[in-house]
């Protein structure tokens, strides 16, 4: 049974705050733009604003509701983080996940060392992961780390509430410093970038929370019996919220788009390494995760709004109209621009943060809606490419996040795959997962309002033919230098 829980989900573009009751019903929620800033080197969190938003949400709850709260569960994007002293003061900025300030520490690695890192951590070498950011931050301290520990943004928020610096396993497995086989930090990998393994904190599972500090409880008006849990990496927590089972694919569509399978062992073969598939630890149980992230996901919606100068309602109406035209076979795929939607870097197998998008096939009669359709068609094509890297048959595709409200995107994916999808109508599946993790229970997919998106064999055949026809051009576009 779940417990009344405040959930905090720190995403790339927004921070989702929810209160769930003991029936897992959403009682209150708020959403704020993720507060960020620049520090001259790159992008960091605006922590005062983030903390203010979290506290304000709790303080604004009616006292009767606040009094029921027994858990705080925090999920967040992986790979972000910073160095924190034992008194919880910061020893470095709290760096965003896509910031590449530490990439230089990885550039000097040999091919053998990169391969070693994959075999140990299950991760392809990337400046996104915490390891290189930690190396950057430690060097800025002069190399003497003292009592500092690397904490992810979710772990840091939990530390501020509980006074305890711990790392949650799914987040730890996104640092590129965790030995998947042993479940502990890898001194060998840390040594490759000159780090002492002690800079990483003890592990603590999502189910094992810490008591809230009296000071924080008093400040926000919570009971001192509340326990604070780090739920884990947002996509992995989403898998819990979606009740993901082995053989099922979780398609998590936030700002970025994640593809995630559960496995009973890491997959470290040559193809997986070459494809830069990311292994990790699941938030609960003994499962592993195999994950690929597509950097451009739901953010396309906002990008198109910005570019086309239309508000959300108009773009939604445009998508609805395009969906209607698409399912009634009124769209000539060959007249649509071919869009490589790498608007914030490329997905595996290249995984280049500097890759950029391309829109080709623009004609004088190309209209705005053609570009919109092309973007989502390109995203479906990109999704299909990434899914093929897993080389597994998919028994069921569960879709969570903003895509579940985008009929065109869903239908294009279903038709492209030739497989039905099932999408959650509930907007905060990650937060539901966080609540379940804090209670140490499973979450039921059926309670997220799932609805089927059937594929159409005729449209699948048409898309397959189109995909074959544009394959050479698509591969050429993907092969551009970053």
């Amino acid at each position: 049974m779940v417990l009344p829980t405040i959930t905090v989900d720190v995403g790339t573009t927004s921070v989702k705050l929810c209160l769930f009751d003991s029936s897992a019903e959403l009682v209150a929620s708020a959403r704020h733009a993720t507060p960020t800033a620049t520090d001259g080197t790159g992008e960091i969190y605006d922590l005062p604003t983030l903390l203010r938003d979290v506290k304000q949400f709790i303080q604004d709850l009616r006292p009767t509701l606040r009094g029921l709260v027994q858990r705080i569960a925090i999920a967040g994007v992986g790979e972000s983080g910073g160095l924190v002293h034992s008194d919880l003061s910061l020893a470095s900025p709290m760096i965003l996940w896509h910031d590449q300030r530490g990439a230089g520490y990885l550039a000097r690695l040999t091919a053998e060392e990169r391969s070693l890192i994959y075999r140990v951590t299950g991760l392809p070498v990337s400046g996104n992961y915490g390891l290189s950011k930690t190396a950057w931050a430690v060097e800025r301290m002069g190399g003497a780390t003292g009592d500092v520990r690397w904490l992810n943004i979710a772990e840091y928020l939990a530390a501020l509430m509980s006074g305890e610096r711990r790392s949650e396993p799914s987040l730890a497995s996104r640092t590129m410093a965790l030995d998947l086989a042993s479940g502990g930090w890898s001194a060998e990998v840390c040594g490759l970038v000159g780090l002492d393994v002690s800079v990483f904190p003890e592990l603590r599972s999502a189910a094992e929370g810490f008591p809230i500090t009296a000071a924080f409880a008093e400040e926000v008006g919570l009971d001192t019996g509340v326990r604070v849990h780090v739920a884990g990496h947002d996509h992995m927590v989403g898998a819990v919220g979606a009740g993901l089972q082995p053989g099922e694919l979780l398609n998590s569509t936030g700002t970025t788009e994640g593809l995630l399978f559960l496995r009973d062992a890491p997959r470290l073969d040559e193809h997986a390494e070459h494809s830069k598939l990311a292994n990790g630890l699941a938030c609960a149980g003994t499962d592993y995760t195999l994950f690929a992230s597509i950097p451009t996901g739901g953010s396309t919606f906002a990008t198109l709004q910005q570019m086309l100068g239309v508000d959300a309602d108009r773009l939604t109406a445009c998508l609805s109209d395009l969906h209607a035209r698409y399912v009634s076979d009124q769209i000539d795929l060959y007249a649509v621009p071919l869009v490589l939607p790498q608007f914030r870097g490329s997905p595996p197998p290249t995984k280049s943060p500097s890759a950029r998008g391309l829109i080709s096939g623009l004609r004088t009669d190309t209209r705005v809606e053609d570009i919109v359709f092309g973007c989502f068609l390109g995203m479906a094509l990109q999704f299909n490419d990434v899914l093929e890297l897993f080389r597994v048959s998919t028994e069921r595709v569960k879709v969570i996040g903003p895509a579940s409200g985008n009929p065109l995107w869903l239908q294009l994916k279903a038709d492209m795959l030739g497989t039905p999808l099932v999408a959650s109508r509930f907007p905060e599946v990650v937060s539901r997962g966080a609540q379940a993790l804090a209670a140490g229970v499973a979450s039921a997919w059926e309670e997220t309002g799932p609805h089927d998106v059937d594929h159409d064999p005729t449209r699948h055949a048409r898309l397959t033919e189109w995909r074959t026809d544009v394959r050479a051009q698509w591969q050429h576009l993907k092969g551009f230098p970053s």
Partner: protein
Amino acid sequence: MVAGIDSSTQSCKVTVRDLATGEQVRHGKASHPPQTIVDPNAWWEALLIAVQRAGGIDDVAAVSVSGQQHTPIFLDATGDVVCDSPLWNDTGSHTHMVALNSELGREEWIRRTGLPLTLSDTATKLRWLRDTDPESARRTAAVAVVHDWLTWRLMGYGSGTGGIDQLTTDRSEASGTAYWSGDTGEYCVDLFVHAFGKTAVLPRILGPLDRAGATARGIPGIPAGIPIGVGGGDNAAAALALDIVGGDAVMSLGTSGVVYTRSCAPVHDLNGYVCSYADATGHHLPLVATLNAARNFDAGAALLGCTYAELSEMALQARPGADGLTLLPFFEGERTPDLPHARASLHDVSLANFTRPNFARAVIEGTVASQVAMLEAMEACGLRAKRLMLIGGAAASSAVQTILAQMVDVPVVIPELDEYVTKGAAMQAASALTGSFPTWTAAVEALPQIPLEERIGQQHKAAMADLGYLNPAPR
């Protein structure tokens, strides 16, 4: 008074000018059919309507016609039009261009005629007719281009009159046929026969100051007996009116884009960019043309849902280089470089740079960069510009002016607004009266010199390289 006529792709324009000053007194215009294969009689009718709309030309002492280059008119022995004419921009002749280049070799055409043979050239249209309508080809006894035929009509010839041996042309028009040599100044009849499979009467090539003849009686709105100037191709007429001298280059941003300069000798650009045309003064007019220019701005404005002026205004809100966003503006394929099946592409799109100002800027930068690349093609032939004259409908755009000034290291001037093609034709009409070209002045305004922004050209070249467009395979 003298009248200059410009029978262009989209319309026929007539301006009546003061003989002493060149000042435009009145003008008229009539639209042409929008299709790319057209009954030539529509152009004759448009000429008569444009003359009427200009208030008639009863008070003019001479007239001359300029026109779209390349576009052939096929005539039988009686002077009848045999069939509709394919315009220079009709792409149906692409395969015929490929065939002609394959048969003789691309370099052979350049070596013989100075032209990298394109689908626009008259020789290609000959092959198109031979292959697609053999019966019309069989009936064809003479081949003229638009200004030749309109001049001939003004002289009283036409359907059923015969007199195809009285057709005249000038060097500039002959140089656009791909069966004329700039080195000898004569037709290459063997190339004509190769393309068409037979001989035909070709217009007599007149000198720059020659008269084509005089107007005939009985043409509605046209006074009889006034001299008709030699006429010429549209760019040659404009160059004459702009009074370009060695070192001047003209960049014309109309629907399509053109860059040309003046040289004393023909050029043979084996890279395949520069077309060695002749000018209206006895010299040469090396020219590079793109299919896409101002039409790109129409496409960009349509996508952004804004006006032309707003597009320009928005573009200037963005930084040079549009934060990396780069447009290759080949919305309808391209002629230079030869990419008939290409379409426009937007490169280096990111969440951060995909904004309306950046897109507007990318549209204009891509268009201007395509034109600047033509200047570079000229330079590769030893034709370095020392001054650039910017003309055409898009020349008035502040963003075009700014971006061009950021991309070239020579002074840029903008001639005062005028119909330079009709003005050049009017100068030829004047020369038919006086025996020499008038010295009409054209005021120019110099753009302020601003720092170069090399990234614009670099981004354009990188995008071209990404798509393999920098060195397209020879056709």
